[in-house]
C-alpha cells in the first residue's frame, strides 16, 4: 500500500512535467493544425541548454531555464518562418514533413556536436520524506514550476491582447484576419510559445534524469499520448493528460512488468483517438 502511495505521488510529480512537455505540442496543433514533429529534438535542446549553462558557466539550473525559454521562443519563430509559413495551408503531409525535416536537422547537428552519449545535470536539492515516500526536491520544484508556467500560459492566453489574438486565430483564422489580427505574426508567436514550452519542459527534465540528444523523442511520443488524452488543441487539458499518464506510469509497474507500460499507453492512445478524438476533456472544435 505504501508502495502504491509512493508510486502515485511520484507519478503525479512527473505528470506535471509531462503535461508541460505536451502543452507546446497541443498549443501549436490548436492554433494552426500542425503536428510539430520537431517537438522532441527541441525538448532535447532544452535539456542541453540547461546542461551547458550549468556545466560550463556554473549557472543555477533554474536561472538557466530563463535563457532556455528565450532561446526556445526565438528558435520557434525562426522555424515557423523558415519551414512552416510557406506550407501552412498545404495538406497535412507538407507540414508533417517540413517539421520532420527540422527535426532531422536539429538531431543531425546535435549528434555531430554532442554525440549520443548520456549526460546529466549534477544538481541536487536533497529530498523530503512524506509518510514513507522519499521524494527528491528537484522533482517537487519541477512540478511546481510546471504548474506555475501553465498558470502563466492560461493568464497570458486570456488576459493579454496578443494572447486573445492567439485564441482568436485558433478559433477562426480568416475571421480573425477580418477583425484586423495580424495572423502571420500571431502564428509565428504561437509556434514560438509552443517551442518555448517544449524547451522549458526539456530543461526541467534535465534536472531529473540523465539524457542524450535523442532523449526528446521519448517525450515527443508521450506528448502525443498526453495531447490526445487532454484533447489536442487544449493546452490546459494537456496538464491533466500529463497527470493521467504520470499516474499510469506510477501504478502499472506495481502489478505487471514495467515493460508493459508502453503497450498500455499506446493502446489507450489509439483507443481514445477512435472513441473520443476531441480528448477526455472535450476541447472545443475549432
Amino acid at each position, binding site marked *: 500500500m505504501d508502495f502504491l502511495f509512493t508510486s502515485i505521488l511520484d507519478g503525479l510529480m512527473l505528470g506535471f512535467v509531462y503535461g508541460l512537455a505536451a502543452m507546446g505540442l497541443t498549443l501549436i*496543433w490548436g492554433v494552426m*493544425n*500542425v*503536428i510539430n514533429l520537431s517537438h522532441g529534438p527541441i525538448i532535447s535542446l532544452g535539456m542541453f541548454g540547461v546542461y551547458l549553462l550549468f556545466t560550463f558557466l556554473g549557472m543555477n539550473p533554474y536561472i538557466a531555464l530563463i535563457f532556455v525559454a528565450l532561446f526556445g521562443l526565438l528558435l520557434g519563430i525562426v522555424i515557423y518562418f*523558415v*519551414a512552416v509559413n*510557406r*506550407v501552412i495551408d*498545404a*495538406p*497535412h*503531409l*507538407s507540414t*508533417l*514533413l*517540413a517539421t*520532420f*525535416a*527540422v*527535426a*532531422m*536537422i*536539429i*538531431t*543531425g*547537428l546535435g*549528434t*555531430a556536436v554532442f554525440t549520443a552519449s548520456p549526460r546529466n545535470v549534477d544538481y541536487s536539492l536533497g529530498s523530503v520524506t512524506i509518510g514513507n515516500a522519499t521524494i527528491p526536491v528537484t522533482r517537487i520544484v519541477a512540478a511546481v514550476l510546471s504548474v506555475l508556467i501553465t498558470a502563466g500560459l492560461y493568464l497570458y492566453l486570456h488576459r493579454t491582447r496578443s494572447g486573445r489574438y492567439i485564441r482568436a486565430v485558433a478559433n477562426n483564422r480568416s475571421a480573425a484576419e477580418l477583425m484586423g489580427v495580424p495572423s502571420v505574426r500571431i502564428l509565428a508567436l504561437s509556434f514560438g510559445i509552443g517551442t518555448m514550452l517544449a524547451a522549458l519542459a526539456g530543461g526541467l527534465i534535465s534536472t531529473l534524469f540523465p539524457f542524450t540528444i535523442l532523449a526528446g523523442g521519448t517525450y515527443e*511520443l508521450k506528448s*502525443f*499520448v498526453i495531447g*490526445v488524452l487532454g484533447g*489536442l488543441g487544449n493546452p490546459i487539458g494537456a496538464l491533466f493528460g500529463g497527470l493521467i499518464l504520470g499516474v499510469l506510469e506510477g501504478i502499472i509497474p506495481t502489478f505487471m*512488468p514495467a*515493460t*508493459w*507500460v*508502453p*503497450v498500455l*499507453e*499506446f*493502446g489507450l*492512445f*489509439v483507443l481514445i*483517438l*477512435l472513441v473520443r*478524438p476531441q480528448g477526455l476533456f472535450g476541447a472545443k472544435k475549432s
Partner: protein
Amino acid sequence: MNSPQDSSVVGSAPKVSWREALSQNAGAYVGLILPLIIIALLTIWPTVTGKDITRESIFTIMLSIALASSLNILLGYTGYVSFGHVVFFGLGGYVGFYLMAVQGWSLWPAMAMGGLAAGLLAFLLGKAILRLRGGYFALATIGVNEAMRAFINNFEPFGGPVGMTLNFQVYRDYGGAAQALRMTFYILAAITFIVILVSYFVRMSKFGLGLLAIREDEDAAEVMGVVAPSAKTWAYVLSAIFPGILGVLFFFKNGSIEPVPAFRLNFSIEMIVMVMLGGQGTVLGPILGGIGYQSLRGYLLTSPLFKNIQLAVAGVLLLVIVLFVPAGVVGWLRNRFPVLRRILQ
C-alpha cells in the same frame, strides 16, 4: 477502362473500331514502359557487373522502391498519411520469421503468411482508424506502430526484446548461404515487378479513380457514388500486404529479427520521403524516389565532408523539396512539360 455496358448506358457513344480500341489500350500501357525498364535494368545490373557488393546495394534500392510503391497506393492515391507504415513490414517479418525459425516452415509459405498477417491487420485497423482524417490518422498510425513494437517486446513466443535468430542450417535447404542471398535478390526483383504492376493497374482502374477522388475531396467523392470506407480499407490492405511479404524476405536474409529495427518509425518516414521525392500519386515517382534517396544516402554516409552531419543535410534537402517542389520530380516534370504526361504516369 470503359466497359461495353457503360457506353450502352450512355447510348449516344459511337461504336469504337477495334483499331482505335487497340491504340487506346496501347496508349494506356505507355506509362508502364519506363517503370518496367528501370526495374529490369536494376535486376540485371548485378549480373552484368558480376559483383556481390553491387547486388547488395541494389537490394536496398529495390526494397525501398517496393516499399515506397506500396505506401504510395495509400499515401499518393488516397491521400491518407500513414506515418507508421513500417508496422506492416515489422509484423509480417515477425510472423514469417516465427514460422521459419520456430515452426520450421520454408520461405515461400512464410512469406505468404507474412503478407496475410499484414493484410489482416490493415483490414481490421482500416475499419477503425481510417475514419480519422488528416493529422489524426497520421497520429493513430504512429500509435499503432509504437503499441505493436511495445507488445512484441513483451511477447515471449516471438522472443521478447531479444528477438529471434535463424539457425544457419536453414540456408542449406536453399543451396548454402551465398546461394540463398542471390535467391532473395531475385525474389525481391519479382515482388518489385508485381508491386509496380499492381500500383499501375490500381491507378488506371475505376477503383483507383475512386481513390484519387477521395484524395481530392472525400465528401464529394461519396456524393458521386464512391463507397469511401470500403475503398479506403482496400487501398490500406493492398498497401500493407507487400510490406508484410517484404518483411519476411528482408529478415530471412538478415538472419535475425528484433523489435527495434523491425518497427523503426524513421524507416516509415524514409518511405514517405521517397514517395515525396519522386512524386506522390504517380507510378514512376516512388521508383525514382527510392533510387534517388538511397543513392544520396549512400553518398552522404561515405563522403568525408558530410559523413558526420548526413542527417542534417538530408533534412535540409527534405525541407527544400517540401517547400519548393511538393509534387516531387515526376510531378514537376509533368507540370513543366505537358508532352511527357503520357509517358510519366
